[in-house]
């Protein structure tokens, strides 16, 4: 069933690629195509919800489906879920359904667009469900290619250049990752790429040059994807020039692949080396938090602002991971909370920032610009747009009652016990983030309404339902998070060795 969740969108994408172009009845056929694509995208979501209902929180990998793909080299097709990957995969599926349904300028190339989006959905879910390092890497690289074409063909501004920068930068990050995977593979006994087996074996003890090189390879690869300062510079151009739904996926899903890799591969398979470098990683995370929020504060371009808040939010995640990965005994509860907070932040950020990017796409379609100073006073014209933007913006800055708060409070409570200084400095980021989002809301929705926006259209029914769905989950996680926290905790507890 998990394999069906991965491959149904992929096969649908291949079928789409062979469809003839829609005929002269342009918009009608495009809309039907969008409906079909959304329906297909919903299938993995339904399957993952069923998987969630069957989830037994044992602390290990569940519902594993495996077959020997390349036994000569120890490569297998292995997929399964645990408390870490299930929420991420489900969030991925939800975000894709919303993004595929969201209206976008298809530029007459509807079929390749939906084919690529469906393909990317299958690949992204596959990455989170993969339990084999080779399979993980295959999905990692393929997602880069799909996103490259999405940005290049349907983007705006300097789309081709941003797409190329994205591709080269992240591909350059994937090669140290590949070398590190090979480095780890070559020391397993017998040679295997099986993640569960490697986690069990812990083949690479810390302290040797080889271990440090492998760690560095993994760290660089995941840091570029996350992205951590200073290797984040591919993010703003890629986000700004991508079409709205692709930006949502880029921020909501692709960035999580980096942080997921940190936990699933680096912290699980090389915990001693991670603990060795936990403090420098935590410092990098705090730098990302402050840098991201301060640069976002200075932005006048809406999309760049949201892009830099992504840098900021991923800083919270990595800070929580750094705290969770230390081996301070007696602090298991704090470390578990930090790890849970980091994971919930991954899920929450996906929903929140994905929604914000979709909104910015809607703004571009109506106003033709991302410059926030061009707008103003839209509160009366666009009630639902204002309301949804406000909910998502407040969630992003961590207002209690919304998803962002649940995540951030756990990250900071956990980190406060381990690295109190880092937590204190990181809290400043929240203050700056609050300021920047309030300014954004003020610039867009409050104040006088310029003449040219007297007929500014509100969100359409499709847009409002899509964003409403995201907002619903953001509020649900904020108000009643137990259903999510229990699942994540089933992974986090055993991970930190809580008795």
């Amino acid at each position: 069933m998990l394999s069906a969740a991965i491959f149904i969108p992929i096969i649908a994408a291949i079928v789409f690629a062979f469809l003839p172009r829609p005929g002269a009845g342009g918009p009608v056929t495009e809309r039907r195509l969008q409906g079909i694509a959304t329906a297909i995208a919903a299938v993995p979501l339904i399957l993952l919800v069923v998987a969630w209902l069957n989830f037994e929180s044992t602390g290990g990998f569940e519902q594993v489906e495996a077959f020997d793909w390349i036994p000569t080299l120890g490569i297998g097709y292995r997929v399964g879920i645990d408390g870490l990957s299930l929420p991420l995969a489900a969030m991925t599926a939800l975000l894709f359904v919303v993004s595929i349904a969201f209206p976008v300028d298809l530029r007459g190339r509807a079929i390749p667009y939906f084919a690529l989006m469906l393909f990317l959905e299958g690949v992204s879910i596959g990455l989170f469900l993969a339990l084999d390092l080779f399979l993980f890497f295959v999905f990692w690289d393929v997602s880069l290619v799909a996103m490259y074409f999405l940005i290049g063909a349907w983007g705006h501004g300097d789309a081709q250049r941003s797409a190329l920068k994205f591709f080269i930068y992240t591909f350059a990050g994937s090669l140290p990752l590949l070398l590190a995977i090979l480095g780890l593979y070559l020391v397993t006994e017998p040679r295997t790429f099986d993640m569960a087996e490697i986690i069990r074996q812990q083949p690479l003890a810390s302290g040797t040059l080889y271990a440090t090189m492998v760690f560095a390879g993994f760290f660089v690869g995941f840091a570029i994807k996350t992205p951590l300062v200073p290797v984040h510079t591919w993010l703003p151009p890629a986000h700004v020039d991508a079409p709205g739904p692709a930006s949502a996926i880029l921020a909501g899903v692709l960035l999580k692949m980096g942080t997921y890799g940190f936990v699933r591969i680096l912290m699980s398979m090389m915990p001693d080396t991670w603990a060795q470098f936990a403090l420098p990683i935590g410092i990098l995370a705090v730098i990302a938090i402050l840098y991201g929020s301060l640069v976002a504060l200075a932005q006048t371009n809406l999309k760049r602002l949201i892009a830099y808040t992504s840098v900021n939010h991923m800083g919270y995640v990595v800070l929580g991971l750094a705290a969770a990965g230390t081996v301070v005994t007696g602090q298991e509860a704090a470390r578990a909370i930090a790890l849970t907070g980091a994971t919930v932040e991954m899920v929450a950020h996906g929903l929140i920032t994905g929604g914000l990017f979709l909104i910015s796409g809607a703004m571009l379609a109506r106003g033709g610009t991302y410059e926030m100073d061009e707008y103003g006073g839209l509160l009366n014209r666009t009630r639902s747009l204002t309301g949804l933007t406000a909910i998502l913006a407040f969630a992003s800055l961590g207002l209690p009652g919304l998803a962002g708060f649940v995540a951030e409070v756990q990250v900071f409570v956990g980190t406060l016990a381990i690295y109190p200084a880092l937590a204190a400095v990181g809290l400043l980021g929240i203050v700056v983030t609050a300021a920047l989002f309030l300014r954004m809301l003020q610039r867009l929705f409050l104040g006088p309404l310029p003449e040219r926006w007297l007929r500014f259209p509100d969100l359409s029914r499709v847009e409002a339902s899509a964003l409403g769905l995201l907002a619903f989950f953001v509020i649900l996680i904020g108000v009643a998070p137990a259903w999510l926290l229990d699942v994540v905790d089933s992974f986090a507890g055993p991970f930190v060795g809580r008795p």
Partner: protein
Amino acid sequence: MTDQVGMVAMVGDVLPELVLVAGGVLVLLYALIAPLRLQLGAAVLALGATIVALALSVAMLAGPESLTFFDTYARDRSAIWAKLIVLAATVAVIGLSVPWFRKDPRHGEYYTLLLYSSLGAILLAGATDLKEFIAAMLVSSATGFVLAAYHRRSSPSAEAAIKYYLIGALSNSALLIGVAYLFGLAGSTTLAGLAAGLPEEGGPALVVGVALVVTGLSFKVGAVPAHAWVPDVAQGAPAPVAAFLTTVPKVGGFLFLARFVLALPPEAAGWQPLVAILATATMTLGNLACLWQVDVRRLLGWSAVSQTGYGLMAIVALGSSDLAVPSLLFFLMAYVSSNLAAFGVVVELRGRTALADYAGIAQERPALTGALAISFLSFIGVPPLNGFFAKLLLFAVAIQVGYGWLAIVAAVNTVISIFYYVRVLAPSYFDRAAGPVPVLGRSAGWATVVSAIVVIVTGIVVEPFVRAFAESGLLIR
């Protein structure tokens, strides 16, 4: 009696090669007597001979691995797999050539030369004796020179052939001197004799001899220092010939290079660092030269050079890693299929070379552009294509034998290579086409699409190939 049985067994070992020889003769005779409008029959005959040879080689896979013809020729599974790759490539090139040479009045003879050139590469892949090696090199090179010049009234074709010939002549001379040195040192020309007879402690004569032979082989595989012919042949020779010459001789060259380094005394000849340095120089030079190419065919030529650099990483690991032979064979399979797909697109687009002419072709010819994209992504090493798996194996063996720096250099070069491959692909997908995009003909299109499909399928269904390659011996005695 045993002698006769032995003779029959020997002949049985080289049945595919004999089929190619006989096929070549038949094609030539047919081409001499057939009128112009029936010259296509020569292609059909050549295709038939190749397919018969393919079938016989597949049958040989099940047989015992041994040396034959008085230890000068190997029938181990590595040689047979190399044979299969060469013959499959020849089938594809015949498919590309039929529409390309349709108007040429003497194109029947072309197929004879093609058959003999692939025979030369096959002999090179199985050679375990230096004399056999020289003979195979000459058969392969001489036919290659003529093939490169086949557009008789075209000066780029003649220029490509002359450059190919001059560099070939120079490296062949170096090769012969190197062979003479090694024969003098070991007292025997068979690789087994070399392994037994070469002085363990090394010495200047050994180093010089090895260096000269490796230089001669670098001509065949298109590596530094004898690489300069590759971009010229890729650009100037007839496009199907360019496809052939940048893929098939490499297979033979790599196989013999692999056997040769296995025959050398491990430390004394210093061949491992030498090959590692050649690999670095080749991949880096080929890569950097691609960056400012504005002619797609020339770019494919330099890309072929850089790909050879990656392949040499497998040679570095020979003797020290059990993954070395599988990585070499898988690399050859991946490289040949990807390169044929790329050149196939060029052939099918009627030899379109200028980079600017590739803008927007995706709207007009989506399947062909898809084949080009698949080929380039395979060169870059994107899963689930076979080029990715080849690179994975190459990186793995390099790290395994302590040449991690080589893997890092290859990784950096891979990132650089994205620039120029995307420089062709991005305009083809994102820009608007300037006009209609005419294509050549049916068999060329089919050959291209089938190559691209092979690139994808062998990237996913990897196990049978990897298992077969892992069980393939590489005999020298």
